[in-house]
């Protein structure tokens, strides 16, 4: 298990234990955290699991594949710290990760 913190747009903070090997997207969906739609189910085909990663975690994450950057073009208000949460696999290294969920996903 690793602790992942999701800050939602309504200024609420949800810290949940997510099983290692699952994605940050799945952690949100399984714990009913609002704002992660994940329409395509993790296929990097929809950009509705878009999150902003807290700056200090950015360089601990795996690099983006081209497909992820292309999909982020479609995301709602993408920024430099934008990632698709379906591409972030939870591991010991990500224990404590914090992400912000945008106000909407489309």
């Amino acid at each position: 298990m690793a602790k992942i913190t999701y800050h939602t747009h309504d200024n609420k903070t949800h810290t949940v234990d997510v099983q290692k090997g699952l994605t940050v997207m799945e952690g949100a969906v399984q714990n009913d955290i609002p704002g992660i739609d994940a329409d395509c189910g993790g296929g990097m085909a929809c950009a509705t699991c878009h999150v902003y990663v807290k700056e200090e975690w950015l360089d601990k994450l795996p690099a983006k594949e081209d497909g992820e950057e292309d999909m982020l073009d479609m995301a709602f208000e993408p920024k430099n710290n934008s990632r698709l949460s379906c591409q972030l696999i939870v591991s010991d290294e990500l224990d404590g990760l914090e992400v912000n969920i945008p106000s909407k996903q489309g």
Partner: protein
Amino acid sequence: MNKTDVLIIGAGPTGLFCAHQLGIIGLSCEIVDNLDKVGGQCIELYPDKPIYDIPAVPECTGEELTNNLLQQIKPFNIKFHLNERVEELKKNESRWHVKTSGGVEFDVAAIVIAGGVGSFEPRKFPVKECEKFEGNSLFYSIKDKSIFKDKTISIFGGGDSALDWAIELSNTSKVNLIHRRDGFSGVEASVQKVKELNDQGKLNLYTKFQLDSVLGDKNIESVKIKHDEGEIKEIKSDYVLGFFGLIMQLGPILDWGLNIDKKTVQVNTENFETNVNGIFAIGDICSYPGKLKLILSGFHEGALAARGCFKYAKPDEKLRFEFTTTSKAAQERLGIKK
């Protein structure tokens, strides 16, 4: 009024195979889809990408899968209603009266929702005031390009639609192309062409910029764009175009009295009927314990839902289980000549 046994909502692989299963058991159907083409997510999201988990098909693309399904349902001459979104359902004694966005009406015995994750709608600008100009000087698709002649157009996006329209419109209009990063997702040849046009002064390319605000009274007069580093530029624009792909919205399905949980419709696993008699849901849009969002699951769900429709379409007849290998009736419906 189109009278048929079953209306299928959604022309993705699940909807297409359900049509096949209906045809095999002797029921007629018509299919409505909000997109302008058949294939659903397979065509809209990944036409060229390979799929490896269709049983007995080691590898195929979304486009090939769609074409094969169309080939398979050809004997049934199914009527498609594309560019139409189902808006209204009304129960009319034992049948359903259905109306689409374009005013097409159906009289059917049962409805199968194979709507994926909803209908595809253009993704819009996050900036609020854009709504005010939408459809008048701000667009997410182009219907009549002649209105842009000799005008100044600001195009946002980095995919093929944005690049193709920037290139095309630069012949007759003054084009600004604005994209949030230096890289583009469109094809390399178009990216090169856009850079060439920019170097020749035939188009103005702004990268690492995003829309900040839109100015104007009745029509757009200019847009402010903001650089990653905070710099804001104001550029004159008569029209603004946004090409950010499509997003899926459940839309009117929410108003049909169905049990909905997290954007999916709850069904039973015996025949994939919803809580409303005569309305079935299959594919990505349905949920039940153990649901897998796989195309193969959608095929199974469609086969059972088709049989579930039978009692509504032919209440006085009994459906007998048959194999296509040996059933004379099924082979006749498929137009097999021996």
